[in-house]
């Protein structure tokens, strides 16, 4: 029993990270229809930022994290300016910015890979390495930290969409771009904000996971795939869907690796199986968008 609870904490933490990456996709895909696979690379950039500020220069943890996330907002905003807006303004189809963003993905990774040594670099956690026990629930400091910060980010995102006028304008654009524009909503501002927010959230995910996985220039692709899978499972319509998808994916991964009576190597196939099943049976994901 203790094992199950311990694994549940670990899976919840991983699920929160996947959920954040899924949320990053969702923030951009909802109002613009653009799927941006560079979210994984954004998470990677933030992990390197974490290495520089928190490990190399040993900044105060909270300030370091805030600076990295702020920097990522800027990265997202610039990406939109470079790879999306010029194409949209020229009347290109949706495929054009998607391909341009794939180009940005490669450029981002190459910049990092030539600027840093090839080996993984350490990123510290705020509380170091250790365990926390609440009765029979035990987990690592980092797991609980990930759950708390990601939880707060999800609550903030939910409140933004449900309670603020800005959030409502995002929803309006998602439902009907033309009508929203006619109602006086500034489409390009919504797009710019959605990219900035996407990069900020992806960066937060990268920062939170980097004390576990280290900062490495190849870390982006697996995160992008895990986040995408979570998005497909949870559905692209709602913030809660991203979190639910991430949690389901992580629980499936870790509980099969631990308990399924199959060789350990095969357990890696579970996420892909889950992805295929959902695409076939329920392509809209678990949670539907509100009409």
């Amino acid at each position, binding site marked *: 029993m203790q094992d199950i609870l311990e694994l549940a904490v670990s899976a919840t933490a991983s699920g929160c990270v996947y959920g954040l990456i899924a949320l990053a996709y969702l923030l951009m895909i909802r109002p613009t229809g653009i799927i941006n696979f560079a979210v994984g690379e954004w998470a990677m950039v933030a992990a390197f930022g974490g290495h520089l500020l928190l490990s190399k220069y040993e900044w105060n943890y909270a300030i370091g994290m805030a600076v990295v996330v702020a920097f990522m907002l800027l990265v997202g905003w610039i990406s939109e300016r470079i790879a999306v807006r010029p194409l949209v303004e020229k009347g290109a189809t949706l495929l054009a910015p998607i391909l341009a963003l794939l180009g940005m993905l490669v450029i981002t990774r190459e910049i990092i890979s030539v600027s840093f040594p090839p080996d993984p670099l350490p990123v510290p956690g705020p509380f170091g390495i250790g365990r926390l026990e609440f009765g029979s629930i035990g987990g690592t400091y980092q797991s609980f930290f990930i759950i708390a910060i990601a939880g707060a980010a999800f609550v903030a995102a939910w409140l933004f969409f449900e309670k603020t006028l800005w959030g409502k304008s995002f929803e309006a654009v998602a439902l009907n771009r033309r009508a929203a524009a006619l109602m006086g909503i500034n489409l390009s501002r919504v797009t710019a904000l959605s990219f900035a927010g996407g990069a900020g959230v992806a960066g937060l995910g990268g920062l939170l996971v980097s004390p576990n996985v280290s900062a490495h220039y190849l870390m982006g692709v697996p995160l992008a795939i895990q986040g995408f899978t979570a998005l497909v499972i949870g559905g692209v319509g709602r913030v809660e869907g991203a979190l639910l998808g991430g949690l389901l994916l992580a629980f499936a991964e870790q509980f099969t690796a631990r308990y399924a009576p199959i060789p*350990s190597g095969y357990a890696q196939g579970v996420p892909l199986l889950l992805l295929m099943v959902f695409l076939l049976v329920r392509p809209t994901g678990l949670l539907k968008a509100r009409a």
Partner: protein
Amino acid sequence: MRNSLFAALLLFGATALAQETIKIGVITDRVGVSKPYSEPATEGAVFGAAEINRRGGILGRKIELLVEDDQSRPDISAALARKLVDQGAVFIMSISLSPATQQQQTVTMEAKTPQMTPMNSADYLTTQLQNPYFWQTGPLGSTQGATLLAHARSKNFKRVALITDNSDLGSAIAKAFKGALEKAGIEIVAEEVVARGATTATPQLQKIRSANPEAMFLAGVLTAENVLIFRAYKELGLKFPIHSSYNLSVPIYETVAKGLVNGITFVDAYDPDKPEVKAFVAAYKNATGKDSQNLHGYGYDGINLIADAIRRAGSTDKEKIREAMQQTNYAGVMGARGMKYSFPDGKRAGFDPNGMVVRVYESDRQGRVLHVGQK
């Protein structure tokens, strides 16, 4: 910077005119997958060549390194070997990956140009091609496994766990470990794989914990995933010893896995307490201002083995160098205390099968030697 480099080249050119240099080709990897290993080895070779030249060179002539980068790509390495032969290299040192070195052999065999690799570990390099102009002085993969197992046998383990990652090399090493462990009659009670890109290794280590092994063998080669394994091991409060492959001899773990590696034993070809190593470490620091690693020793030994052969050949005639190289009997930086490189009975793999050691991490540093050889 560029100007001073240019001036240095001019100066170098001027002395070369006055007295022809002995050209030695180096094929390394500066941007590919082997960069973390090849770069330090190349620095060791460059330092070694400078040291030889400071002491008057070989046969009264300076040596000149012609360095090429093949990115560990077999498809371009043969062309670079050809280029080096055409430029007059009398010996080629290969320090990228084994498959690239293998391709270069097609050129050196045909051009009858001596070639050696000081650090490649693939067992097939001297067995697949009968190339009398090629030698390998890196420790063989089979020697690494046998040395680790010899240490494990001395502990009388009955039940062990095996963990690796899903990379090609990691799977291959795990397979070799498994075969050797089973042959030694040791039961493998858990066999786990951590996938590339995983965010935790907790499920795998929970499973190993519940199997209750006496020790865990680590065959993984992906640094980030190995760090995940060490984190989970520490966070779950596990106590059984970890015995690791040669991969842990790469010094990156001292920084990226700080606080996680103490007590882990690993195979290496380097004894920090050996007199030759102490002399090398001091001389390297003195000349470059930087600390050397075990990997630097490979390139340093490589250039010194080549210089030793040319010196004994008494000429730069490639056939005479080949004969001299085959007679090598040389103690270098790498290898256990007292080990000498040699090629007995016409063999061309020269690292003594009993020359590897098992070391242990202490205070986040690669520490002392615990075990030597395969006995």
